């Protein structure tokens, strides 16, 4: 995924609110709670209860939306309605208080005249839910007309006591303006018709939206539609049957709550992670509070302990319980909010976590992630070209090993999505879903994202496989080179032995015979000269013998590593303790490599390390030959380009073995390797 895309996606799925926004949301919430809470202490009035309920529900849902999505139309409308309802509730509670409180008329007035306005605004909120946009230009005009009409009625209601509440409740209009009866006779019928009309309008808007909505939106609206239907029916029915709107008013809070449920449950506005954290934090606050109270009050009542001890015990108990409870609360919150389904964000972030594993579990993780994200009962990942693919991974079962072309993947009810990368089909995803419903648009989008990710994963895997294959081939080639080099050295030594060395020995024999003959002939001069030639010849053969041994010691081939090492250490100018634990012959290239390692290390110890003694240990243990040469010299040895140790390292790496050189200055040198012999 390119970084810009990742950033955009992250912003869409989860952005933490800024501190200022948190503060503003908190202040508004406190304001509403304060008004409603204080109002509630002033008495209980059924006729005013709906205002309190509306205040808390609208403000709660609105603030929740605004907190995550500032500037969202629905959030703003809901918060506005919540605050207005809180003011109205408080005003009415204040006005109804007995004995009457100072300025109660004015506050009662404040609680009554905005009713038509708040109804109209609530209507707009319902009409634009959930998108915040009007259905069409025509609906917008209708909504403006509704608000305009409501403003007129509110103005009249503010000037004259037209609303039924003035008559029904024990309230006094704060001032007299005259023309009261005229206004009443004109505005009261208008008010009744408007209120009914407003409700019809919302219902019509919601039904229209429902009919025009796509599948995803229908599901989100289902709750909301029921919530709108109930108070509407009750308002109309109540007005006709019992001459009171009260039952309808008392169920109005269902609308904001249903909106809230739709937002949370269907992740409207993509803000579900926020509620999740809120739930967890709420649970934790509850735990600390309850735990503390339980210990201090409960235990305090049973045992005669000092407050300090109790507080300490309570703190300890809460601290110990905190993490397990937090984890459980997180899981519960996850389940409440997400259900079994992961959010697109979770799914994609889970996938990118999987990408960090670079083995075959990558594709298993991909299959499991897709299954979790799209509620699939079965997911199979296929890799290959259009004409032939094989199943490489599956969830929940293991993949079958049969291969087939893309066209034959899945049966009728499976979803098959070819995976492309670099414009080429690289594989396919086959999903079997629990329900037969087609995918919702959001799920379709998620699947498309996952298929794109799968392309990356499959390409990544193919590259890894290619690199591994090339590495294996390279290793095999290097090993073949070493083996070929060894056998060339062996052949050269054999050729020297059978050819040049035999001839030189024969020549020495002839010279020896010549010396005898010259001596018999009494030619002292000749004896001396031939004898000198013979000595030089012996020196030459000795040199040649050493060269042959360096090329490839005959003992290594014939008698094995232990004999060859023993011979080497017999010749070493530095005393050597040799320990060989071997119960069988090893492959020629292993023996030769171990031999040359000891040879090189011994040469270095003798030449450069000023060592007093050297330990050579060769041990065969469960198919691994460990070779270590340790001296007590001056240390500081380094592998230099073109040097013997570098050549040794190359030879070892051809056999897949490391060259371990430990040589701190002043503390001796250890050269070590482990060769796999199987």
């Amino acid at each position, binding site marked *: 995924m390119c970084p810009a895309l990742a950033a955009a996606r992250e912003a869409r799925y989860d952005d933490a609110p800024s501190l200022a926004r948190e503060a503003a949301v908190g202040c508004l919430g406190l304001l509403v709670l304060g008004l409603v809470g204080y109002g509630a202490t002033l008495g209980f009035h059924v006729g005013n209860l709906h205002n309190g309920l509306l205040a808390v529900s609208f403000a709660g849902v609105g603030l929740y939306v605004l907190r995550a999505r500032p500037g969202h139309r629905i959030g703003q409308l809901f918060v506005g309605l919540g605050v207005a309802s809180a003011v109205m509730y408080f005003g009415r509670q204040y006005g109804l208080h007995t004995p009457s409180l100072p300025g109660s008329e004015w506050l009662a007035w404040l609680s009554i005249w905005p009713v038509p306005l708040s109804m109209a605004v609530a209507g707009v909120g319902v009409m634009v839910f959930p998108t915040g946009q009007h259905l069409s230009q025509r609906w917008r005009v209708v909504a403006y007309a509704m608000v305009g009409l409501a403003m007129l009625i509110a103005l009249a209601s503010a000037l004259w006591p037209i609303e039924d509440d003035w008559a029904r409740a024990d309230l006094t209009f704060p001032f007299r303006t005259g023309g009261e009866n005229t206004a009443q006779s004109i505005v009261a019928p208008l008010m009744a018709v408007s209120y009914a009309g407003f409700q019809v309008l919302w219902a019509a808007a919601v039904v229209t939206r429902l009919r025009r909505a796509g599948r995803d939106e229908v599901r989100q609206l289902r709750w909301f539609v029921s919530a709108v239907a109930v108070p509407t029916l009750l308002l109309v029915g109540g007005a006709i049957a019992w001459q009171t709107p009260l039952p309808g008013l008392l169920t109005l809070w269902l609308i904001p709550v249903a909106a809230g449920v739709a937002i949370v449950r269907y992740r409207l506005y993509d803000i579900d992670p926020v509620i999740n954290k809120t739930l967890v934090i709420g649970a934790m606050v509850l735990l600390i509070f309850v735990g503390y109270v339980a210990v201090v009050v409960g235990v305090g009542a049973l045992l005669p302990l000092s407050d300090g001890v109790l507080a300490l015990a309570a703190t300890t108990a809460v601290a110990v319980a905190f993490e397990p409870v937090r984890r459980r609360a997180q899981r519960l919150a996850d389940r409440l909010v997400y259900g079994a389904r992961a959010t697109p964000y979770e799914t994609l972030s889970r996938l990118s976590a999987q990408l960090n594993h670079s083995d075959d579990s990558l594709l298993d993780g991909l299959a499991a992630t897709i299954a979790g994200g799209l509620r699939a009962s079965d997911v199979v990942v296929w890799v290959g070209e259009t004409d032939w693919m094989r199943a490489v991974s599956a969830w929940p079962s293991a993949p079958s090993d049969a291969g087939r072309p893309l066209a034959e993947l899945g049966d009728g009810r499976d979803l098959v999505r070819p995976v492309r990368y670099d414009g080429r089909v690289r594989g396919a995803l086959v999903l079997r879903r629990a329900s037969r419903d087609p995918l919702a648009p959001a799920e379709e989008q998620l699947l498309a994202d996952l298929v794109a990710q799968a392309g990356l994963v499959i390409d990544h895997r193919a590259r890894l496989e290619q690199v591994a294959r090339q590495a294996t081939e390279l290793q095999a080639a290097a090993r073949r080179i070493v083996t070929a080099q060894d056998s060339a050295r062996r052949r050269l030594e054999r050729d020297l032995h059978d050819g040049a060395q035999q001839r030189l020995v024969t020549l020495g024999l002839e010279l020896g*015979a010549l010396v005898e003959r010259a001596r018999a002939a009494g030619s002292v001069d000749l004896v001396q000269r031939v004898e000198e030639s013979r000595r030089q010849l012996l020196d030459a053969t000795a040199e040649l013998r050493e060269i042959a*041994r360096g090329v490839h010691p005959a003992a290594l081939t014939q008698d094995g590593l232990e004999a060859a090492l*023993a011979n080497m250490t017999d010749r070493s100018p530095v005393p050597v303790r040799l320990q060989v634990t071997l119960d069988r012959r090893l492959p020629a290239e292993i023996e030769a490599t171990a031999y040359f390692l000891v040879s090189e290390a011994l040469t270095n110890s003798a030449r450069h390390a000023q060592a007093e003694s050297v330990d050579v240990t060769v041990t065969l243990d469960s198919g691994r030959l460990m070779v270590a040469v340790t001296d007590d010299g001056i240390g500081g040895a380094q592998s230099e380009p073109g040097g013997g140790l570098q050549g040794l390292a190359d030879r070892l790496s051809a056999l897949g073995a490391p060259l371990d050189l430990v040589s701190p200055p002043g503390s001796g040198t250890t050269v070590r390797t482990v060769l796999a012999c199987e």
Partner: protein
Amino acid sequence: MILADDAVLLREGLTRILADSGFDVLGQAGDGTALVDLVRDSAPDVAIIDLRMPPDFGSEGIDAATRIRAIAPQVGLMLLSQHLEVHHALRLMTEFDRGVGYLLKDRVSDLAAFVADVRRVAGGDVVLDSELVHRLVARRRQQDPLDRLSEREREVLALMAQGLTNAGLSAELHVSLKTVEGHVHSIFTKLDLDADQRSHRRVLAVLRFLRS
């Protein structure tokens, strides 16, 4: 005597020169099997054997020597090699209790010494190449028990390791047999070795000691 070597040129040359030195060369062989057959048929006093022969160019010479010792115990066995290996020497000293020799091939160019060594082996003595022994005696050790020996004793030890008997030592060093016996006793005591008088055991003990 009989010669076995896969290098024809060297074999022919040796045959001629040894014949000149008074040996009766009964036959030549190119490998171990032919050699054993030849020995069975002609019953020589001594066989000169290349250590490395066909088919595998390993230690076929020692294998052939073992078979010869089994069918004709009195035959002396002189093994020649391009390389001197301690483990070969140890194997020879372990498997044969008398009449065995192990020399570098180059030694054939010093005819007089070589002939003397062949005769010693034919006579039942043990002969080891001096270079091999000197390599071991000259080896540096961390705590060298050879330091306990005097210069003369070290000289005696090296000769002893080459297979010389007390009489041989006496002749080589131009000292009396009694003096030699004194040195040998002193060496074996200082090195904590078993002073067996049979030559091969003595050589074996010394070799093992030197290698340890």
